[in-house]
């Protein structure tokens, strides 16, 4: 059994409520931090823990906090990114649904560390239920004196505002989120300046993911160095993985970073193997934006090492044979899944969600979707496959925000590893055009 940090008390009945949460040592990190530690000491502890952003990029949280411009007289803001919209990722929702006070506790401690007196939680528009849960949790914490003026009799005051987005994936990108929070159109900002210098209402701002902030409470309780003992190398601590696709036990799991991918996939404690005893074909381990890997490369690296669930190991091999940890949305495909269809589906998503500000992403995502749609429906041409590779390469790195890259990588990696499936679609259009066609794996055996 791996160690549980975030989900330690998840099975306690009623843990969702303030009283039960409090009875299980909840809010002790707030007491410890506010009463016995200076803000800098809290930041130092988070630095020592090695905690890295759980929103996708994996940037060290303590370091990010230390970039916050403290010299200005302007207010500083902490914004919690609860916009979770990445296909395959549903871990933040799980945390909010089941143990919302863990997030509130993390928010209070983090706000104290950063010297913020107003903190915002930006929640994905579709998360109506979760907005209700958070609002109630905030009200409970407020009533108990953990929010408001002079928390626990100290001279620290804090308000938490829960803000609903309007349902756009792009508003998860931190600067688009800030624009949206300010009441503007959710277009990502041109950087520099970065939010740490000029963020919300032009004031220094830190944006962190729900899971990142939820981990701060336990880190303060156990101490940074203790947290850093869990995990492997620079991937410290535990991570929530939302597993879905063709597996026996889809769901949200807390793993110690460094767990072998094969164990996560096949052990009964986690995914429980491939559904129906089928062969594993591919895995996207970090949400739809990261490269897909075929079965043999997801369980072992190109160098033959077992692949681990860690930032470094998943990235081993770069884009040629590796992928990324991303947000921890673990999507599993069995042998009968069609990679062309899946790729088309993702590219449709990115096309739909592009904000349209910059030319490569606005035009390129639509172009890729249209070409993939043709291939998937038996109207592809041989040259379309290289065309897709070329479009993806021209978007990548040339856009304002990483959504462009996120749209390009799934296409590029699917073709890199599953080119024969794309070719099959082009070569046997009448087969793929048949709406009742058999799984690709079976068709390919018969016809190639």
């Amino acid at each position, binding site marked *: 059994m791996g160690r549980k940090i975030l989900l330690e008390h998840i099975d306690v009945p009623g843990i969702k409520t303030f009283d039960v949460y409090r009875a299980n040592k909840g809010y002790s990190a707030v007491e410890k931090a506010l009463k016995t530690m200076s803000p800098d000491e809290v930041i130092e502890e988070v630095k020592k823990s090695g905690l890295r952003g759980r929103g996708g990029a994996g940037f060290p949280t303590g370091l990010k906090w230390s970039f916050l411009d403290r010299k200005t007289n302007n207010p500083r803001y902490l914004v919690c990114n609860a916009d979770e919209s990445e296909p395959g990722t549903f871990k933040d929702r799980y945390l909010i649904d089941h143990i919302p006070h863990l997030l509130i506790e993390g928010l209070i401690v983090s706000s104290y560390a950063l010297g913020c007196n107003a903190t915002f939680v930006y929640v994905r528009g579709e998360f109506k239920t979760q907005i209700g849960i958070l609002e109630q949790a905030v009200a409970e914490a407020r009533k108990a004196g953990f929010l408001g003026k002079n928390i626990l009799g100290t001279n620290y005051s804090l308000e938490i505002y829960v803000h609903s987005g309007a349902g*756009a994936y*792009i508003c998860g990108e931190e600067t688009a989120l800030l624009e949206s929070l300010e009441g503007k*159109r959710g277009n990502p900002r*041109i950087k*520099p300046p970065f939010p740490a210098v000029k963020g919300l209402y032009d004031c220094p701002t830190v944006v962190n993911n729900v899971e990142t902030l939820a981990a701060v409470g336990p880190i303060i309780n156990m101490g940074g160095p203790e947290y850093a003992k869990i995990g492997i190398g620079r991937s410290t601590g535990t991570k929530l993985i939302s597993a879905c696709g063709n597996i026996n036990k889809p769901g949200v799991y807390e793993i110690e970073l460094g767990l072998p991918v094969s164990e996560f996939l096949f052990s009964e404690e986690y995914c429980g193997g491939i559904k129906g005893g089928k062969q594993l074909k591919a895995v996207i381990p970090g949400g739809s934006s990261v490269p897909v890997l075929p079965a043999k490369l997801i369980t072992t690296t190109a160098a033959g090492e077992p692949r681990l669930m860690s930032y470094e190991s998943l990235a081993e091999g770069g884009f040629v044979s590796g992928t990324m940890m991303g947000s921890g949305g673990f999507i599993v495909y069995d042998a009968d899944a069609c990679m062309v269809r899946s790729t088309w589906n993702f590219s449709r998503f990115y*096309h*739909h*969600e*592009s*904000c*349209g*500000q*910059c*030319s*490569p992403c*606005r*035009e*390129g*995502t*639509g*172009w890729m979707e*249209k*070409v993939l749609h*043709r291939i998937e429906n038996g109207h592809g041409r041989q040259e379309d496959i290289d*065309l897709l590779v070329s479009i993806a390469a*021209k978007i990548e*790195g*040339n*856009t*304002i925000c990483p959504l462009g890259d996120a749209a390009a990588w799934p296409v590029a990696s699917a073709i890199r590893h599953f080119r024969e499936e794309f070719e099959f679609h082009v070569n046997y259009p009448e087969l793929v055009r048949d709406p009742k066609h058999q799984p690709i794996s079976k068709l390919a055996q018969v016809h190639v």
Partner: protein
Amino acid sequence: MFKVTIDNITVEVEPGTTILNAARKIGGEVVPPAMCYYSKLKGSGGKCRTCLVKVAQGSAADPRPMPKLVASCSTPVQDGMVVQNITSPEVLAARKAIVEFLLINHPLDCPVCDQAGECDLQDLSFKHGLEATRYIEEKREFDVVDIGEKIKLHMNRCILCYRCVYTADQIAGKRVHGVMYRGDTAEISTLISQNINSDFSGNVIDVCPVGALTDRTFRFKSRVWFLNPMNAHRDCLKCSGKVTAWMFGKEIYRVTARKDQFGEVEEFICDECRFEKKQTSDWVIEGPRHIERNSVISANHYEKIKKPSIIKPLEEKTEKQE
């Protein structure tokens, strides 16, 4: 002052200057094309990506190159920065890619487009475009609409540079003009077909780099290259009254702001000057205006008529016979 080297030419600029503006200080070929940045509009730039350049050396203090190409219009220079624009094959390839993206959904109906001849996209495509399109899908289409009495919007031709949005916001006062929807279905729109009613609304036409926003009082009247741009002025209470009057013989066909060598207006003008004053008697005509562009308008420079030099006939070579 910061020293920055662009395509092997070094220039000194104020700290805070962007790479693009440093390049503009040098001038000529090393200036990256800018389809969205507009020095007179706050917040503009960063969107079209045509101005991408390579930073081969970040600064004297930190000589590492930047990992990705950067938008020169929104990246400030550092002391000792080394930038490659036209000397970098990577940059030229990216620019080609951007032009391809800008054109896939573009109607390219230049023969019936009022902007033809003074269109930044035309110039850009001519210089960096591919010979043939690789795009065989359907282009997205919008209806042509009027925004107000004087302005036509051809959304099909829009490259979403947002210049008109900033203009409406910052110059024309009221924020009723903006972008709706997102991605490649995003469109410029006025709030529920409201007109942009302001004395300065016509400036959106001048800032538009393409033929998406055109002057309804000039529509289809003439191709721009048949007109003579003349500097003209009048006493105007609302603006400086300094304009370019586009003339055909003695008639004024249209009035625009005066544009500088980078295609930007020198001063924004009011709608009265632009739309109402079409009589020669309304203006003091100063003389021909130099159009500093590669366009067909300046192909026949008429402002400095030079005496043709006499071409010496080539001396005929006597072929040796062997």
